[in-house]
């Protein structure tokens, strides 16, 4: 299982703040997980297909498309940060 979190506009667009799911077969990286989620339908496709305006963290560390994802990980998708 992995935990996936969505924040800010992404959370609103997807209507979901978090979910737990079995690590899908063949998914080994952030890019793979993103592709898997986008295949869920039009809403997911458009929300996650924001090009470079999407950020991903794995286990609380900023991640790249090639960052590995393992069972037990917490993966978060969110827009560029705007604190401070």
């Amino acid at each position, binding site marked *: 299982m992995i935990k996936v*979190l969505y*924040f800010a*506009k992404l959370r609103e667009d997807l209507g979901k703040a978090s979910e737990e799911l079995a690590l899908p077969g063949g998914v080994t990286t952030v890019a793979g997980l993103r592709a898997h989620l986008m295949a869920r339908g039009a809403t997911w496709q458009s929300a996650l297909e924001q090009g470079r*305006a999407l950020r991903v*963290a794995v286990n609380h560390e900023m991640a790249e498309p090639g960052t590995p994802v393992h069972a037990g990980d917490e993966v978060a998708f969110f827009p*560029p*940060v*705007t*604190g*401070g």
Partner: protein
Amino acid sequence: MPVRIQTEDFDIGREIAALRAANTKVGAVASFIGTVRDVNDGNAVATLTLEHYPGMTEKALEDIVAEARSRWRIIDATVIHRVGELKPLDQIVLVVVVGEHRGDAFAACEFLMDYLKTRAPFWKKEQTPEGSRWVDARGSDDIAAERWVKPKQDVA
């Protein structure tokens, strides 16, 4: 605790006093407060909601403070960031850095703000008379943070 995420307001005088009380070698106190302006991109702002990523936020801020300590000769630092509902003129963020001399304290304080702006998972949503909107990330913040990126070292 050098890093705090909280809904309550903060008092810069009290935070500086706490840092100074812990160390008598302090000669320089550099600080920064970010506040809610009542106008953003030309629209009046009624309230601001700050969302964050609990767990990652604390880690990101602690990492940024550790990085500042490794780069400059400073004695201590405090970072406080508010979350939840904020009104125009409210305080949002406080960074205080204490050191022996001012150059390192100033540099570390500005670095902490620049890195926090681009690396700590906070998001602002504005409520205006015309409706609500998520605040866009500013390119100028990326540029400010880029200044602090060290050139990669060749490993011989």
